[in-house]
């Protein structure tokens, strides 16, 4: 199913190039597309934020930017290799999304919608650059616009290869987190582990622990406070 807002944004982002058109059909996800780690609950929560944006609350959009900036940059980075340009295209993606957000009705996940905008914005960026006078072969490192196989690999962009530095940081951070979790009381540790490691919802955790959802929520928050304090110190 293709709904109107998808088409509107897709067409709009394609129209922006006054010359030359880019096929919109290839490599784009279906409406049910959700990358690993994003659940339907995540889509519901996103839509709550979107509704606040639609009501004029710009700061709500900040949370969506923070939540998805890494993914968008990764997607764009598959097309645009230069990090600064990828950052610009990612920025343009969010700006377009904000402008078009009133037309978003929640028929599909916000991330699916954002993904489409990111891909089209990146493709249009490449198309525009190829038309630029004096452009060199630098863009040859980018994905060819008509390469279906490469487009289908987008999801791999979400799994960037780690550098030794980031791996080291991850290892050290994991130690800090594990240590913080170990220091928690049993009830807090159980709650946060059921949430973070087992991915249970608050309702499910409440059933497991035979306590109210509000208690679960409070325990998870208090556990996070302890862990976050240690993470913050580590980052500082």
């Amino acid at each position, binding site marked *: 199913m293709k709904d109107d807002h998808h088409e509107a944004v897709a067409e709009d982002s394609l129209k922006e190039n*006054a010359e030359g058109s880019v096929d919109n059909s290839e490599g784009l996800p279906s409406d049910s597309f959700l990358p690993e780690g994003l659940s339907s609950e995540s889509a519901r929560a996103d839509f709550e934020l979107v509704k606040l944006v639609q009501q004029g609350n710009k700061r709500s959009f900040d*949370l969506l930017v*923070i939540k998805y*900036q890494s993914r968008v940059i990764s997607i764009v980075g598959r097309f645009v290799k230069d990090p600064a340009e990828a950052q610009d*295209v990612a920025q343009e993606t969010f700006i377009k999304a904000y402008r078009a957000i009133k037309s978003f009705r929640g028929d599909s996940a916000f991330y699916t919608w954002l993904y489409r905008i990111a891909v089209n914005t990146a493709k249009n*960026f490449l198309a525009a650059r190829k038309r*630029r006078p004096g452009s060199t072969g630098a863009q040859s490192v980018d994905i060819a616009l008509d390469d279906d196989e490469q487009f289908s690999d987008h999801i791999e962009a979400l799994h960037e290869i780690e550098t030794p530095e980031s791996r080291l940081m991850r290892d050290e*951070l994991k130690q800090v*987190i594990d240590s913080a979790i170990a220091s928690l009381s049993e009830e807090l540790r159980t709650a946060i582990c059921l949430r973070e490691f087992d991915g249970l919802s608050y309702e499910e955790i409440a059933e497991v622990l035979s306590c109210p959802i509000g208690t679960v*929520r409070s325990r998870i928050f208090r556990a996070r406070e302890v862990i976050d304090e240690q993470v913050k110190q580590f980052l500082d």
Partner: protein
Amino acid sequence: MNEKEKLKETLSALFDNEAGKQDQLELRRLVRSLDDNPELIETYQRYMLTHATQKGEPLPILSQGLLNNVRAALEQETMEEVLPDISVTINKNNTSGLSLRWLKSLGRVAVAASVAVMAVYVVEHQVLSPSASIARNAATQMPAPDMVSNTVASGTAEVNEHNNRLLNPDVMTVSAGDRQPFDRPVDSATKSSPGCTIGALRSDNSERVWEKELPAGYVLCKQKDQSKQCESVTSKIGCYLN
């Protein structure tokens, strides 16, 4: 639990996609508080980092640079809506985190400043006689509603010449003293109009690439593409003959 802790608990619930399930208004309260509690965004980012670390997922970006740039661009758009007849160009990196009210004031100053800068640019890059005119055949003329220009020659911001005709540089005759907008996408303009070569104007309005020369008597003017609400990655610019 004090108010800030309540907000952070809501933030924690939001991270788990559980906010607003029991209290419809809590999400609204959280979002409204973000201006006064910017550290909540950082906390949310650390939640993401912690989660990614535990799950072995790619580590998220902790920088708020992109967020600040998006904010600045959107606030600038709001400002341009407030000041619809003046095209303002402000470097995005210098505006992040500034309040809209401050930006509005700055915007009026920036108009004058940008005009002055552009005037210097044109003077420095004059390569032909100021009296030079370009002969071209007239053909396509289109109305350019709501076109906005900052005209350099007079050193003042000149706004909104409604009913300006769109100039096709290949076919239209322009005489000195005329002021006709030239409206083409940046790339094709460079290719097809040798008298008016120009550089890329980035969509964030930071004029980072003014790389070409103008003939004497021409000035560059950014035009807001009303029909597409400035959606383009490459913006359009105007070329005026004084």
